[in-house]
């Protein structure tokens, strides 16, 4: 019966558009490619400087033995978290709407894990002795736990990405039969003789079923052991029993947000509007909101318990984080990185938001003009004003107090709300970018303040050793890693269709996701916003 079935039904218009994204590369692609390669090259130059002169070119010192590199490590591993995990959970629970986005989510895991796994090596004082980890590795060190779990997760998630891609690769094998040799060879090898027989399909389903279940504990273990490089020390601020689940929740939150960014980017660049609809953004938005609330809960629990007691050892880093040196960063991660994104994602569902536009001081044009002018004045005046005692009264301007900034920020937010309501995808993108900026900064705020307040006071440190300000080398390598992540992701989407063709084609699945079947997946949640 299946022999009679046409092996390759004609491609629908949206599939043709998707396939064109593999080959049609405009100037935008090449500009991006060039930019990314330039940033990566710059990062490599920075790394060679570090190799040559030693880690002294960073601002890491004995008191701040870890900094931006380890922040990047935790961040990338966190972003990598959600791809395979979310896709596995959605597969197991049979959430049909997942179909067009699982592959881009799983590819994030792949690209991000590569960069995350690179970071400890960048951080290493003696990368030339890396083989010692294999020759003399000791299983009681959390470094070894990281190595084992990350390599397992990388292998597992790569398989998890690859296996459901096989039918699509077979499809590409036929399509590029007369294409460039590298594509022909690549697809032929990777398709592993897929013919789409009933037996093959059965195997594929079975493998995916097993992998979807296996990948969940592996994914959770990865970020748990990442947190334990901190949790296994005695340092106040790291010595926490909930660091494992806390980091897992933060990882899920930032990873889900990264998927939203990727969805919007590919939808826009590859014209995938027929695949990725507002429904997907809404559903992913719910996921991000839920994960954000779990994360906020963990943050609250993590900080309240020591802050309530204010034990001597914890007092230092807690006051630095709440009201001292790191307060701006910390409160930005909480307000800008959790609260605002969650609000932005709920905006399309809030009925009273359009009414805001009718409030006089919230009319977009005058309000935005006023806010922009005030910010300009606040930021530029201190540089322009002469430094004289007579201008002492301008202290407010010279050092704008936080409440002015907060008030301006709040005003800006309220002004933008009605605009975001009309553009839910833009709101989702802004929210997800905020989440990821906040996520990176939060990891920084977990690592550095604790190091600033060790048990014994920092004394007799050579000049400049008692504070941590990342250097250009650290920033360059960080930018290079970020560019590397985007590059791997971009090239992946040029070799393999970023949306699964065979999975979005399966019977019973309506291409027009805007009107999903009522019942399990439909209902009020999918109804258009009032």
């Amino acid at each position: 019966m299946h022999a009679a079935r046409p092996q390759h039904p004609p491609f629908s218009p949206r599939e043709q558009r998707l396939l064109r994204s593999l080959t049609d590369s405009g100037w935008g692609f090449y500009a991006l490619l060039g930019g990314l390669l330039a940033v990566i090259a710059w990062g490599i130059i920075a790394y060679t400087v570090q190799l040559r002169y030693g880690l002294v070119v960073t601002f890491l010192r004995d008191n701040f033995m870890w900094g931006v590199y380890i922040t990047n490590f935790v961040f990338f591993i966190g972003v990598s978290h959600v791809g395979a995990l979310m896709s596995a959970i959605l597969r197991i629970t049979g959430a049909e709407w997942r179909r067009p986005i699982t592959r881009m989510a799983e590819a994030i895991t792949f690209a991000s894990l590569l960069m995350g796994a690179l970071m400890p090596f960048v951080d290493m004082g003696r990368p030339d002795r890396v083989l010692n980890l294999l020759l003399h590795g000791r299983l009681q060190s959390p470094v070894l736990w990281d190595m084992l779990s990350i390599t397992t997760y990388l292998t597992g998630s790569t398989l998890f990405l690859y296996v459901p891609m096989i039918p699509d690769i077979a499809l590409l094998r036929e399509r590029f039969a007369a294409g460039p040799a590298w594509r022909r060879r690549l697809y032929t090898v990777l398709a592993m003789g897929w013919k789409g027989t009933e037996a093959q399909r059965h195997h594929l389903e079975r493998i995916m079923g097993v992998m979807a279940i296996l990948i969940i504990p592996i994914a959770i273990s990865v970020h748990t052991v990442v947190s334990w490089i901190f949790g296994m020390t005695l340092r106040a601020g790291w010595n926490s029993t909930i660091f494992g689940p806390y980091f897992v929740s933060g990882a899920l939150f930032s990873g889900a947000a990264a998927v939203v960014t990727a969805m919007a980017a590919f939808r826009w660049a590859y014209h995938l509007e027929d695949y990725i609809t507002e429904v997907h953004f809404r559903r992913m938005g719910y996921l991000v909101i839920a994960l954000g609330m779990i994360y906020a809960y963990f943050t609250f629990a993590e900080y309240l318990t020591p802050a309530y007691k204010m034990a001597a050892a914890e007092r230092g880093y807690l006051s630095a984080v709440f009201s001292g040196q790191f307060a701006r960063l910390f409160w930005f991660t909480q307000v800008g990185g959790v609260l605002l994104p969650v609000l932005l994602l709920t905006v399309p569902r809030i009925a009273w938001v359009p009414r805001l536009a009718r409030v006089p001081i919230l009319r977009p044009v005058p309000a935005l003009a006023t806010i922009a002018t005030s910010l300009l004045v606040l930021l530029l005046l201190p540089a322009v004003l002469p430094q004289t005692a007579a201008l002492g009264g301008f202290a407010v301007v010279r050092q704008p107090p936080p409440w002015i900034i907060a008030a301006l920020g709040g005003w800006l937010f309220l002004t933008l709300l009605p605009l975001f309501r009309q553009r839910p995808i833009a709101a989702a993108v802004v929210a997800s970018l905020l989440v990821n900026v906040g996520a990176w900064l939060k990891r920084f705020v977990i690592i550095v303040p604790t190091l600033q307040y060790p048990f014994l006071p920092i004394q007799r440190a050579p000049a400049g050793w008692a504070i941590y300000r990342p250097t250009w080398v650290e920033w360059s390598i960080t930018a290079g890693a970020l560019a590397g992540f985007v590059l791997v992701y971009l090239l992946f989407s040029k070799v393999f269709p970023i949306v699964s063709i065979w999975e979005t084609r399966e019977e019973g699945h309506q291409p027009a996701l805007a009107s999903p079947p009522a019942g399990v997946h439909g209902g009020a949640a999918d109804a258009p916003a009032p």
Partner: protein
Amino acid sequence: MRLFGLPGAGGDPALAYAAEPNTRTGPGEAGRHWVMVIDLARCDGCRECTRACTAMHFVPSGQEWIRVYEMRDHATGNAYWLPRPCMQCDNPPCVKVCPVSATWKREDGIVMQDTSRCIGCRFCIAACPYQARGFNWVQPAESEEQRRQPYDMEWNTRHFKGTTEKCIFCPGLVKEGKLPACVSACPMGAIYFGDQAEDAVTNSQGETIRFSELVRENAGYRLLEELGTEPRVYYLPPRKPLYPTPPAEPAPAMVGGHR
């Protein structure tokens, strides 16, 4: 538990760590249990100990393997000097986390450091609650003579870029029957060194005292005892200090200093 390098309940933690199959410097002198006592009442903060240590081991710039802190535990408390060598913990947090056995616990109590194996991950620095470990952020300056010396971790000869170093109780000197560099350099005789098994410690002034009595009678304590690191360095409290104490204003960011 031995498999994981963790001390078994009730067992001798030093032995549990010695089970780590590492005989690069041998187990140390058989039956010895090196121990240090620092009498804070006799410390005048001259930092001769630090200088002697730095000179003897060519300690790279930026590091102090025995650092003299200015401490003050609370606002009404007396300010005092606190020399801090490596505590040679019997439950060493640094040894637990080292991924390549570049640091390990010898049977004589010394937490050794093999800079020729260290990969520079700095996990041990993060794990040490006493800030007792330093890192070579650059290739340390070495004289021609130093460079010709063979690598000998018991003498701390040769320092390598990108590796961690620390105080190891001068096992080279101790083997020759001498006191560690900081102990013999202390003009006040504030630092005692000896063998816990023999129950005798000696200072630079040739006073040899029973270790257990010295600690018991002077209410000796160990730094950050509550962390359970089981240090091999004991402090005698700075009661009625014999010499000028640090300036009265508390040093910045002063936390801990538990006493």
